[in-house]
């Protein structure tokens, strides 16, 4: 009788888990369609479309010539049945993006740009949105599956899964940016692939799959955006150093699997060497590939007499408050819907628990080198921190040189959200307390309340407030 009860409980738990994932995933996908349907503008949308147009105009280009990428503005929105087109208008300015071209090539290949015989450029925005929604949805499926697997290895209560899925799917910008053209969507995919490789490596599955997942993840991240590329590179170095120190062998690189992935790394290296030779940097900034006149007239340069001069301390506050605001906000150049007060409480709790998880992980690893399970979160946490510091440093120098006050966007770290989520859940799972029914009940209530709060703070708060702000829709 007891075993029948247990089997029933286990089945019921399994159904609840699937239900939590499916509902939150469906909400996530729907949310993206909602943003696309309403036409809410996405950060850098016109610049991203300009880069895609450049790829369409130059289909053979592998290494872009940034000074040849023109900026286009949306001239007119054309609605044809269920399809939305944008007629684009050429401007004399340059596109300010200096990112690698992989994402833009992919979007161009998805048939999103149409150039008429008279040279008029049209963007099939519905197609572009759908491609990004599919890309982001597939990323989310991989992230949820990986999380499910990791969580199920320990106490397999449904509320842990609910919390994990809620943290992954409710970061405001993840779905918002996922609904339209932005290379962050490819970073997200690269990061989860890299993460899968690391998980596989930590499970001691030394095989082609593991090494290829890591290499593919690194390659995609590097080719999508340098910030996420830097995160995966630093994390990889930490894992390699840790493994060498732990095993006192070079097995992580001297094996038969790693050399097969070298071509991928060589392609990445080739691209960046070529960019470095051309521009003297791995990612050229706007000021490096346009004329001085255009740069000084742009939003990235503020004339000395109009500059807000911030001390190091004030700039530090400005930058990190901006990072926090943009982590919890939905925004574009002309508007920002910030979550403040209790609406941002869920995101705050998640970040605090994640930082706690990193600190405890480092402590455990310094005590016992066999604590291999902690390495992923610790490596990713340190990599995020180092990248953030580098980001801060370049932002500070940029502010000193050109007076630019922007560039503090937390979306560069958005691809790490599944790792943050698993860190939080693993931390809760690691709390060693007797699992009495009361404890389980309290744990369930906390997980449900936090998940509900996150869901409200994301889409609920958005719908209830966005129409007050008067966002100019395209």
């Amino acid at each position: 009788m007891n075993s029948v009860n247990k089997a029933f409980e286990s089945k019921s738990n399994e159904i609840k888990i699937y239900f939590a994932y499916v509902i939150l995933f469906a909400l996530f996908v729907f949310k993206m369609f909602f943003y696309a349907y309403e036409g809410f503008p996405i950060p850098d949308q016109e610049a991203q479309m300009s880069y895609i147009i450049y790829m369409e105009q130059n289909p053979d280009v592998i290494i872009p010539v940034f000074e040849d990428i023109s900026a286009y503005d949306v001239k007119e929105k054309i609605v044809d049945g269920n399809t939305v087109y944008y007629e684009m208008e050429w401007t004399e300015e340059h596109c300010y993006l200096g990112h690698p071209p992989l994402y833009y090539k992919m979007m161009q290949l998805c048939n999103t740009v149409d150039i008429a015989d008279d040279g008029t450029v049209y963007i099939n925005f519905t197609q572009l949105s759908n491609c990004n929604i599919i890309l982001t949805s597939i990323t989310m499926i991989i992230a949820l599956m990986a999380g499910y697997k990791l969580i199920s290895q320990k106490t397999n209560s449904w509320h842990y899964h609910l919390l994990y899925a809620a943290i992954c799917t409710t970061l405001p910008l993840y779905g918002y940016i996922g609904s339209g053209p932005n290379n962050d969507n490819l970073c997200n995919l690269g990061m989860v692939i890299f993460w899968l490789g690391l998980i596989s490596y930590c499970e001691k599955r030394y095989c082609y799959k593991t090494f290829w997942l890591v290499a593919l993840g690194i390659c995609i991240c590097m080719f999508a955006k340098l910030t996420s590329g830097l995160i995966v590179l630093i994390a990889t170095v930490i894992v390699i150093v840790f493994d060498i120190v732990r095993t006192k062998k070079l097995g992580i690189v001297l094996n038969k699997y790693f050399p097969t992935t070298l071509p991928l790394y060589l392609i990445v290296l080739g691209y960046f060497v070529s960019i470095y030779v051309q521009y003297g940097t791995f990612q050229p900034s706007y000021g490096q590939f346009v004329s001085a006149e255009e740069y000084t007239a742009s939003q990235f340069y503020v004339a000395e007499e109009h500059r807000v001069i911030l001390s190091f301390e004030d700039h530090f506050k400005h930058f990190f408050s901006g990072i926090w605001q943009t982590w919890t906000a939905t925004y574009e150049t002309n508007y920002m819907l910030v979550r403040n007060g209790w609406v941002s409480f869920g995101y705050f709790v998640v970040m605090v628990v994640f930082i706690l998880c990193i600190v405890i992980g480092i402590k455990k690893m310094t005590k016992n080198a066999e604590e291999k399970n902690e390495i992923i979160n610790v490596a990713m946490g340190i990599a995020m921190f180092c990248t953030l510091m580098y980001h801060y440093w370049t932002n500070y120098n940029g502010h000193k040189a050109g007076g630019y006050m922007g560039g503090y966007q937390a979306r560069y770290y958005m691809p790490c959200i599944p790792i943050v989520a698993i860190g939080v859940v693993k931390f809760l799972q690691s709390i060693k307390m007797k699992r009495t029914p009361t404890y389980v009940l309290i744990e369930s209530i906390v997980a449900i309340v936090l998940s509900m709060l996150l869901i409200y703070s994301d889409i609920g708060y958005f719908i209830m407030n966005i129409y007050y702000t008067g966002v100019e829709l395209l």
Partner: protein
Amino acid sequence: MGDKIRNVEQHIKLGVLLFVCLVVIMIGQKIGLTDFVSGVFSTFGKNVAGYEERITMTKTQGREPIPILGTEYIEQEIYIGEEVINAGKLMLEIDVANYVRINQGELYVDIKQGDVLQTYVTDVSKITTDKMIRLVADVKNYEAGNVCVKFYAPTATSDNCIAVYVLNDLEVYTNLNVNGTITDKNACIDLAIPADHVIGDFVFIEEQ
């Protein structure tokens, strides 16, 4: 070992489930289901914000305040279309400032078209610098076309001052009249068809 295999099986099952979910939503998108649900969400959100449909929207950047002191006034011509007349109601969202003072007195707004004139009033102490104020007007007696909106505050003094925001943007409206001078600016007034539950900040006084 058994647990591990079961875990892998469930993990794959979850992946299949999520993928099927994505395919179903994509099919839903093709047949217009997601658009329908998005429309419902959008209507709900707009209702919460107090309107059924936005008609015009002025830019948020580059606004500057124009004060109204004593017998001064500003007049803005706005265009209302058939959709507003058919709805029978119009909501003006006006960007007004109080110069960070607690003012006392009244702000009047006349809405005039031909012989039809409606007058509304609000207590200026309601006006804050970070909120648009709303005027909900009954437009059944108006016709589609231009309507003149006049703001004046007869009791305001230099110590007790409010301002209406304007901007150099002639895309939405033209001909802002400040104390009889026609300018190349327009007042920051957004037009919308209000939701049923909305109560404006202004009180209707009379119609002539």
